């Protein structure tokens, strides 16, 4: 066993659980609805970063299309929330449809009358789409840059669709459900601790599940495929099968992110399907460290926090700062910021052999 505490599994689990406990304590420590809402948004971004870390860091598949799952789920959630507001008898059609000359509710929208069905579709549709899309790509042994380009094209296609189908999606304006999400008779105010804790709960559950999965035999095969797909294929594994599953799980995580996002912002527009969001998720994961789920989460919080709290005069140059950080990370820190932590911990714990450090992060290869 390596002496570096960074690679110690118990320490890793402690770090993960410590982080999530800390995040869960925020509503107790701070009584600021604005802050809670903002941190809930960061938690959603962190989910996206985790999905990128899984598919790219562990699976070796650079997907620029995580926004597809995020956006589809966001629209599903937006539709569910919109239909909670509509009344089947007196006001069955959302107002933006009426202004688009649509007098009856389209068939596509009918299932969203029921909140459970709506939620199920919100998660199931993107996940099933990712299974199909992934099967199509990986059974043809599409890899590397071509996956990036194909996911990019698919994302652009969905963006065009959301933009164009104005009577169904309200196009550029997007859907803004007039009321907060209501579940089992409880209204979830986007600025409430409940909404925040739901987001953090999703983030924690998904991250820990992925971490557990990646420590299993399945996860080891996935990481082996990342390092050398040919060799794993020769060993008799069905590479495409593993890649499709990983891709689908990452889509599922991104879909959960999209669901939480609309719950927290009460708005959905084609921007969730823009290339910018998908690439930003890749940036967050890369800056924090794509080989580590915790790294990706930290990257999402750090980059977004930096953006929000940089002074106003610096907002103009924010994109320049972000671009420079990103180039710097790609050139000099391929393992991201947690790579630095790994080296530092290795320096201290590796030499003295004492386990004094309290922070430990996911094992990297």
């Amino acid at each position, binding site marked *: 066993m390596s002496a570096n505490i960074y690679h110690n599994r118990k320490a890793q689990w402690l770090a993960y659980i410590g982080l999530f406990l800390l995040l869960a304590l925020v509503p107790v420590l701070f009584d600021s609805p604005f802050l809670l809402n903002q941190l809930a948004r960061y938690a959603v971004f962190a989910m996206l970063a985790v999905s990128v870390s899984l598919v790219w860091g562990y699976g070796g598949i650079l997907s620029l299309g995580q926004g597809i799952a995020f956006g589809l789920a966001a629209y599903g959630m937006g539709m569910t929330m919109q239909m909670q507001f509509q009344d089947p008898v007196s006001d069955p059609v959302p107002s933006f449809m009426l202004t688009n000359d649509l007098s009856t509710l389209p068939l596509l929208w009918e299932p969203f009358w029921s909140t459970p069905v709506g939620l199920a579709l919100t998660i199931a549709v993107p996940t099933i789409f990712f299974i199909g899309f992934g099967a199509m*790509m990986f059974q043809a042994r599409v890899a590397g840059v071509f996956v990036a380009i194909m996911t990019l*094209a698919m994302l652009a296609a969905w963006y065009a*669709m959301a933009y164009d189908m104005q009577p169904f999606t309200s196009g550029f304006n997007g859907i803004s459900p007039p009321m907060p999400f209501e579940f089992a008779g409880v209204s979830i105010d986007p600025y409430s601790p409940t909404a925040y804790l739901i987001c953090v709960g999703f983030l924690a559950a998904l991250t820990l599940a992925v971490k557990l999965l990646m420590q299993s035999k399945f996860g080891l095969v996935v990481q082996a495929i990342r390092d050398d797909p040919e060799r794993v294929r020769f060993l008799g594994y069905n590479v495409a099968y593993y890649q499709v599953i990983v891709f689908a799980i990452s889509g599922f995580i991104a879909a959960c992110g999209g669901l939480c996002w609309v719950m927290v912002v009460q708005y959905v527009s084609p921007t969730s399907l823009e290339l910018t969001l998908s690439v930003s998720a890749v940036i967050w994961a890369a800056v924090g460290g794509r080989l580590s789920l915790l790294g990706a989460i930290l990257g999402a919080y750090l980059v977004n926090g930096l953006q929000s709290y940089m002074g106003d005069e610096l907002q103009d140059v924010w*994109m*320049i700062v*972000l671009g420079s950080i990103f180039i710097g990370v790609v050139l000099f820190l391929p393992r991201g910021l947690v790579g630095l932590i790994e080296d530092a911990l290795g320096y201290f714990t590796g030499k003295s052999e004492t386990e004094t450090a309290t922070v430990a992060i996911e094992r990297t290869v």
Partner: protein
Amino acid sequence: MSVTDFWTPFELNSFLNALFIGLSIASIWLIAAVGLTIIYGTMGVINMAHGELIMLGAYTTYVLQTFFYIPFLLCLPLVFVIVSIFGLFIERTIIRRLYNRPLDTLLATWGLSLILIQGVRVIFGTAPKYVSIPGWLNFQVSLGFLHLPGFRLFIILATAALIFGTWYIAYRTTWGIRVRAVMADPDMASSFGIDSNRIYSITFAYGAGLAGVAGALFGGLKTLLPDMGSGYIVEAFLVVVVGGTQLLGSIFSSIILGELASIFSYFTNDTFARFVLFTLIVIFLRFRPQGLITEGMKRR
């Protein structure tokens, strides 16, 4: 919205006009993609900042016209030189460190594109800028039922000229032979005394220069905005990948994709046409990831 509103019925004259528009779209995609084809084909570098090089070309034209009163046609070679010098700078500082790491070039150049967009926004502001085209290009070509603005015809011709020039350099000069040798086998080329790093630098600069010229031409078509480049990058990439990263392949794929886009948008509308086209491209790449045309020597 009913089905009959959505589908435009077939009508021969306007359909032929749509085919003509398709050619114009093809020329725009091709000229945006040709620099990318060369850079990707030669170096395997995914340059996500290509759209921003196009944007820089457009803004350079604007600056040359507005502050130095240089006529439009003279701007084109100047823009080529200026943007290729910038391309050389990028290659030396960033791209050079990332050879053999294609996914990382994709990411690093994405970071670069963020910097370029915001840099231009800080310098020139968000207000749209304009490139004025010479008056003699402001005519309308009308052949019976076909209508095409003169400037679009000019772009088609300029694209043809640039493609011919690139083809000539690649296949009829010693320089082109060296480039193709490096493409085929960098190690073997090195052992014959070809400095592949130098070839890469110049190739990247040349591709960047072509993007600059594309930007100068696009400037005459639409308003200049700092994020205008992102509108071209997806299409340009698809042209390159569908074509198979060869010059000839890009020509074919841009014509096919441009015509398909125009035909689809004739029957439906622009954005829905994009959806159909992109979906078709994804399916096409599933079955033929190597693209339309592959050169024998590049086959693995």
